[in-house]
Structure formats: structure tokens, C-alpha cells
């Protein structure tokens, strides 16, 4: 296990990091749109997003598995039991979190802000960026919520990644394997590392967040 420890940690950061960044890139604009636009069914959609914030990872894993398995509609891509499949599943888990937290953060800003910016001559893109700047505390919170959720989940990682030694085994799934083998001490150490990783990431993001608040 020792020799494999570093690759497992690196892989965990890589997979969950990429999934979170993708979720933020897609989810933050969606959250902004949800907060700013008015359309029929918006409240229903927000309720769905908020439900999605508690999406059970094991269900996401099952659905992504059905899509990517060879017998599934996307089977020809040959992506099942790869890191890409894990990123896809974790992206789905993280997306509603990012959309929901972003929407809440943007809605907390003064309602007149976009109109004000537009009237001052900022284009729609520039307006969005300026509002993102104003909502940065919430956006960083979205980033932390997303990363925390995907790095610690085990259901989807196990199902779509397959927990393959040397290629898709991450900290969370390695802990399951070690526990099953009765190697409780090693499992506990990995658990500590997982917590440490989540803490370190959140510490950095919180420092950034609090600095930008000054």
C-alpha cells in the first residue's frame, strides 16, 4: 500500500479537482442565470436544483454506469472504469451544488446591480463578470462545497471507476477496500489523509475568500 499511496493521493486530487473545476465552469453561469432571469417554472427548477444538492452519489454512479457500460448507449466510447468516467460522475454530483450556492449568492446582491452596470455602459458579459466579482464569496463557497462533496463520495467512484489498483483507486475507495480486508489501521490513516486533503483545500480557499472580503 505504501508505494501506491502517493499515486492514490495524486489521482484523488486530479479527478475531484477536474470534476469540481468543470462543475464550477458550467454551474456558476447557470446559477447566475437562474438567479437573474425570470421565467415560468423557475421556482420549480430551483427546487429541483436544491434537491440535486443532496443527490445520492451511488444513484449518480449507477446512472452514469448504465450510460457508459458497454451495453449502454455510450458504450462505444469505452470510458467505463476510467478516470474520465469518474470525473463525469463527480461532475454530475457537484453541478447542482455549484448552481444552487451560486444562485443563492447572486440573489443576495442588490437587485438593481445588473441594471446599474448595464446603464453605466458595461456589456452583458462584463456585467456577469462584475457580478461574479461581487458574488465571489459565494462562488468560493460553491467551489468548496463541490470539492468537499466529490472528494469524499465513494458510491459513484466505486461503481464507475471500478476501484482499479494503479488506475482508478482513490482515497475513498481504497478505504473501503482496506476496511474489507480488515486492515483497519491503514484504512484509518487514509481516512486521516482524506480529511487533511479536504481541510488543506478549504483552508486555502477560505484564506482567499476572507482576504477578498477586506
Amino acid at each position, binding site marked *: 500500500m505504501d508505494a501506491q499511496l502517493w499515486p492514490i493521493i495524486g489521482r484523488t486530487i486530479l479527478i475531484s479537482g477536474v470534476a469540481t473545476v468543470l462543475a464550477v465552469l458550467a454551474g456558476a453561469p447557470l446559477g447566475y442565470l437562474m438567479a437573474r432571469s425570470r421565467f415560468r417554472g423557475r421556482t420549480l427548477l430551483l427546487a429541483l436544483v436544491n434537491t440535486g444538492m443532496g443527490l445520492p452519489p451511488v444513484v449518480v454512479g449507477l446512472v452514469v454506469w448504465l450510460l457508459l457500460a458497454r451495453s449502454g448507449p455510450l458504450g462505444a466510447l469505452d470510458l467505463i472504469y476510467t478516470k474520465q468516467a469518474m470525473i463525469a460522475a463527480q461532475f454530475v454530483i457537484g453541478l447542482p451544488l455549484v448552481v444552487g450556492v451560486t444562485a443563492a449568492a447572486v440573489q443576495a446582491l442588490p437587485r438593481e446591480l445588473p441594471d446599474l452596470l448595464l446603464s453605466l455602459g458595461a456589456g452583458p458579459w462584463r456585467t456577469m463578470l462584475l457580478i461574479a466579482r461581487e458574488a465571489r464569496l459565494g462562488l468560493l463557497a460553491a467551489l468548496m462545497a463541490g470539492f468537499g462533496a466529490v472528494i469524499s463520495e465513494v458510491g459513484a467512484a466505486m461503481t464507475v471507476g471500478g476501484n482499479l489498483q494503479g488506475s482508478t483507486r482513490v482515497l475513498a475507495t481504497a478505504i473501503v477496500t482496506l476496511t*474489507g480486508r480488515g486492515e483497519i489501521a491503514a484504512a484509518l490513516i487514509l481516512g486521516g489523509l482524506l480529511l487533511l486533503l479536504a481541510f488543506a483545500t478549504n483552508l486555502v480557499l477560505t484564506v482567499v475568500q476572507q482576504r477578498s472580503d477586506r
Partner: protein
Amino acid sequence: MSLRRVALALLTAIGACRADGRSTRAGQGKPGSPATGGSIILATTTSTQDSGLLDSLVPLFTAATGIDVKVIAVGSGAALELGRRGDADVVLSHAPDAERGYVASGDLIERRLVMHNDFLVVGPAADPARAEGHPLREGLALIARTGPVISRADGSGTDKKELALWHQGGIDPARVAGREMTGQGMGATLQVAEQRQGYALTDRATYLALRPRLTLVPVLSGDPGLMNVYHVYVVNPARHSRVHLAEARAFVDFLVGAGAQELIGAFGRARYGEPLFVADAGKADPTGN
């Protein structure tokens, strides 16, 4: 962080994913190597993985052929289902009765006998059921009366074997005293049995691998009815077009070949004091054809 930098970091990360995926197939194009490359999905029972056997065998195969093996260790029931759906190329299973159905339906072909060991009924050293020393049938009847019994109940080969043993003894599993169902793999189930100080049916390989951390001891063993036989199958490409047939056959040939069979027969002797499996390729099949 600027958007451009985020995008750049992302591209680098995705590139790293790709490179990592390729590196497992390194040696593929090396001149002079017998490499064919490619990859297969091997659906198998947890015991071959939890015992560490596949960790020893698979790297040898990959080194010799350049074929990457994705080992999906689930119960035999789930492994057979992966084969039936065409979601695997090779199935290594230890549920001979269940396997027959998948051969009959044409989903699994080219059955080969690989190895065997035996199941054990383990239990607390104090043996509250006083089952030790009795023949299998009587011993199980005594255990059913006192319990507790910790069962896999996950559709695995061991689970199917346990149910068959109860039925052969005329015992209704639902009426076994203190029977609890974990729905988990063999290792996890032995952990529960250890904590509950209950009886459990286990394959010898997983038990020996976990023995240093268990106080449970074998209570019933050695009966011919406890034989545990492993077969390997190729998933039928005529039914599932995405099967990697050549690579799958290469793996089966490797598994029943002299080198792997020698390793299987010796596996575990150094670590556990006795081999975990008996290599059987080419021998008469004890479960019949």
C-alpha cells in the same frame, strides 16, 4: 486566478489523465515484444481479489502481452450478470450451478477449469453450537439452532453455496437462529462475524488472508460438499459485439497455462503457511461438464 489559467490547468489535467491511461499499456509498441496491446474487463468474485491472487497474476499477463486488465471484483452473481450484459470480456466465477444457466443461454462460452479450494464454516473458538467434530450436515443443523450466523446474502458464489447447504440439510434459511445478512463481500462479512462472534461460511483463501486479524476458527471443514471450484469463461462475441475476443482468449490461455497454474498452486504458501488454491487446469472437472 484568471479564466485562461483555469483553462490551461484543466487541459493539463485532462492530458495527465490520458497519459496515465496510456502508460498502463506501455511496451505495447516495443519492437521484439509479443505485445498486442488493448485491454479487457475481467469480472470476478471478490475472493480472487481479496486474497491477492490477481494482484500477482495480472501484472505478469500484462507484462507478457501488453494487454491491460480491468479487474472488477464483485460477487460471482454480479460477475455473471456483467457477462450476460456484455459488460465484461472474461468472467472468473465460483458458482458452477449458476454458471450453467449462462452457458445454456449462450452468453458465456469456452468454459475452462482453473482451480479449486474449499469452503469452511468458521465460528467462535468457544463453539457455542458444539458443532465441531460433527459431519457437515449435523454440524450445520446444530449451528442453525444456536446461531448467530452471518451471511453474505449478496448473490455471490459463497452466498449461493450457503443457501444450497441449508436446503440440502432441510433447513429453512429464514429460520436459522440469529441469521444476519450483510450484503457485502467476504472480507467485510468476516469482519461482521468477528464482531458478532457468529458463524460464517467462507472460502479458505479469504479466511487465511484475514486470519491474522480474526479470532474465528474453522469449525466445519473437509467435507466433499464444501468444495469450491473456479471456472473461467469468455463472453460470447456472437451475442455481444463489443467483446474483445482475442484479448479475452489470450487471458484465458494465460490463466490455464503452465506458468500461471504453477503460481496459483504455490500462491500463499510463503505468507500463510499453506497454498490458498489447488491448480486444476487440464484435470477432470469435479463439477462435470
